[in-house]
C-alpha cells in the first residue's frame, strides 16, 4: 500500500514538473482582444498598455475599418480573459488603433486626443471615399484552420483631390441643368461614396453620394439632398476624362443600377433603404 501511494505521488510530481508553464496561442489572442475600463464612469479605456480617452465627434463619426484584428471586448478590470466576450462590450478599433468605438462612444489614444479634437472642430468634409469590398475564396481547409486569411478585408479608398473637386462642382449644378435618372440607358452602374475630411478620419452621418455611369456619361446624386426626385447632376465635360480614368481603375467596385428603387415614383418622395431615415421621407427644397 505504501509503495502504491509513493508511486502515485511520484507520478503526480513528474506529471506536473514534466511540463513547464506554456502559454496557449488562443489564450494570447484572447488577451490581445481584451481592453479594460479604468473606472465606473467608463470615460477611459486601457488597451495594450495605452490609455484611450472618450471623445465626442459631434455630428460626425469616425470612419470604420473592416479588418479581422480590429475588434475587441472592453470589460471591467476584474473580468477574466475567458469571459471577456460574454461580459464585455464589443468594440471596434478604427484609424489604425488611434480610435476605439464601443457602444456608440469613441475613445482616442492619449497622445492623439488634442490633435483629433482639433480635427473635429475644424472638420471640412469636402472629400469622398468608397469601400472596396473584397470577398474571399472560401477554400474549406484554409477557412477552417486559418480564418484570418479568408476574412473579408475591405479597404477604404480616398478619392484624389481633383476627383473630389469635380464631384463637388457637379453637385452644385442648377436644377434646370440636371438630368433625369429615368432617361438614362438601362445599363447603369453606380458607386456609393461617403463624404469625409481630407485625411479620411471623419465621415458625415447620413450623407452618401452616388457616382453614376451610363455609357460614357457620369453623374452624381446625393441622398438627403435638395434635389427633387429623379434628378441627377452631370459631371462637367472638363472633368469627364478624369472621372472616366477613375472608373476604369475601379470598374469592379461599381454596382449595377442600385439607385432605381430610390426613384420608384414621381411623387417627390424617396425610399431610403439604409435605415438612416424614414422609409418615405420627402426631399425638401433648400
Amino acid at each position, binding site marked *: *500500500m505504501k509503495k502504491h501511494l509513493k508511486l*502515485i505521488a511520484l507520478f*503526480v510530481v513528474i506529471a506536473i514538473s514534466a511540463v513547464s508553464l*506554456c*502559454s*496557449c496561442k488562443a489564450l494570447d489572442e484572447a488577451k490581445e482582444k481584451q481592453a479594460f475600463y479604468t473606472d465606473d464612469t467608463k470615460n477611459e479605456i486601457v488597451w495594450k498598455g495605452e490609455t484611450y480617452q472618450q471623445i465626442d465627434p459631434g455630428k460626425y463619426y469616425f470612419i470604420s475599418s473592416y479588418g479581422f484584428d480590429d475588434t475587441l471586448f472592453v470589460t471591467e478590470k476584474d*473580468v*477574466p480573459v475567458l469571459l471577456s466576450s460574454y461580459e464585455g462590450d464589443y468594440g471596434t478599433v478604427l484609424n489604425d488603433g488611434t480610435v476605439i468605438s464601443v457602444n456608440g462612444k469613441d475613445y482616442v489614444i492619449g497622445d492623439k486626443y488634442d490633435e483629433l479634437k482639433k480635427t473635429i472642430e475644424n472638420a471640412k468634409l469636402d472629400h469622398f471615399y468608397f469601400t472596396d469590398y473584397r470577398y474571399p475564396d472560401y477554400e474549406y481547409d484554409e477557412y477552417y484552420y486559418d480564418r484570418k486569411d479568408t476574412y473579408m478585408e475591405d479597404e477604404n479608398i480616398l478619392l484624389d483631390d481633383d476627383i473630389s473637386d469635380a464631384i463637388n462642382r457637379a453637385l452644385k449644378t442648377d436644377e434646370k441643368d440636371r438630368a433625369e435618372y429615368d432617361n438614362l440607358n438601362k445599363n447603369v452602374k453606380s458607386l456609393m461614396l461617403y463624404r469625409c475630411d481630407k485625411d479620411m478620419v471623419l465621415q458625415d452621418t447620413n450623407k452618401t453620394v452616388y457616382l453614376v455611369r451610363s455609357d460614357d456619361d457620369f453623374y452624381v446624386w446625393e441622398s438627403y439632398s435638395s434635389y427633387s426626385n429623379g434628378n441627377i447632376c452631370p459631371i462637367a465635360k472638363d472633368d469627364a476624362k478624369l472621372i472616366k480614368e477613375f472608373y476604369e481603375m475601379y470598374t469592379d467596385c461599381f454596382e449595377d443600377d442600385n439607385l432605381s428603387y430610390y426613384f420608384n415614383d414621381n411623387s417627390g418622395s424617396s425610399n431610403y433603404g439604409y435605415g438612416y431615415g424614414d422609409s418615405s421621407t420627402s426631399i425638401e427644397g433648400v
Partner: protein
Amino acid sequence: MVKKLIKYDFLSFFRLLLPVQLILIGFAVINRIIQLFENTDSSAYQTIFVSSCVLYGIAIATALVMTVIVSIIRFYQGMYTKEGYLNHTLPVTPTQHIVAKLLTSLLFYLGTLFAVFISFIVITLGEVNIEIFKAGAYLLKQWIIESGAVVAVYILEFILLAVAVRVTTFLMYYFCISVGQLVSKKRILLAFGVYFGLYTLSQIVSTVFIIIGTVNYRWIEDVLMWMSDHPQAAAHIYLLGALVIELILGFVYFFFSKKIMSKKLNLV
C-alpha cells in the same frame, strides 16, 4: 468487522482501478506534451492534437464506466458466487454487507472523479489553468453577489442530490443482481432483464406525466409562470424534490436487496 470488510473491498478495487486512473492521467500528460509543440498552421499538429483529445475523452469515459462495472462485479462476486459462501458466514448482517459495498463503490467513484479532475489540471497546465480557475472564481463571485448566502445552500443541495443519485444508481444495480440470483440458471440475463424492465417502467411513468401535463397545459403554464417569478424557491423545490425521490427509490432498492439477501439467498 465492517471496517475490515471495507478494507478488503478497498484493496480489491484499488488493484483493479488504479491502473485505469493512472492511464487516464497518462493520456493527459501526453496531451499536454503535445501542446508544447503548438502550431495552429500545421494540419499535422491539428490532427495529432485532436486525436489525443479524443483519446483523452475516451479514457475519461472508460475510467468512469470501469468504476461502475467493477462495483457491480465486486458486489455480484462477493455476495452471490463462491466468494459469497465465505462472506455470508462472517458475523455481518446483509445490511452491513450492502453498506460496505456501497461505501467502497461510492468512494472509488469519487476517486475516479478526482482522477478526472487531476487529469484536467494536467491537460490545461499553465496559463490556461490559471485563467480557467479565475473564470470559475469570477462566476462564483457573481453568483454570490446576485443570490447572496443562499448559494451555499444551493451547492449543498446539489452535492447531496449528486451523491443520492449515485448511491441510488448503485443500489439499483444491486437490486437487479439480487433479483437475478433468485433463479438457478441465467442469473445475469435476468439481472439485465430487471434493469431494462426498471428503465422501461421509468420511461412509462415519465410519458404518463408528460401526457397529463399536455392535457392540463394551463396548469403547466401556471407552474412555469410561478417558477419564473420565484426562481430561487423553484430551484430549492426542484433540488429537494429530486433528492426525496432519489432517497425513496434508494430505500426501496436497498430494502428489497436486503430482503432477498437475508430470506432468499441462493448461492450457486
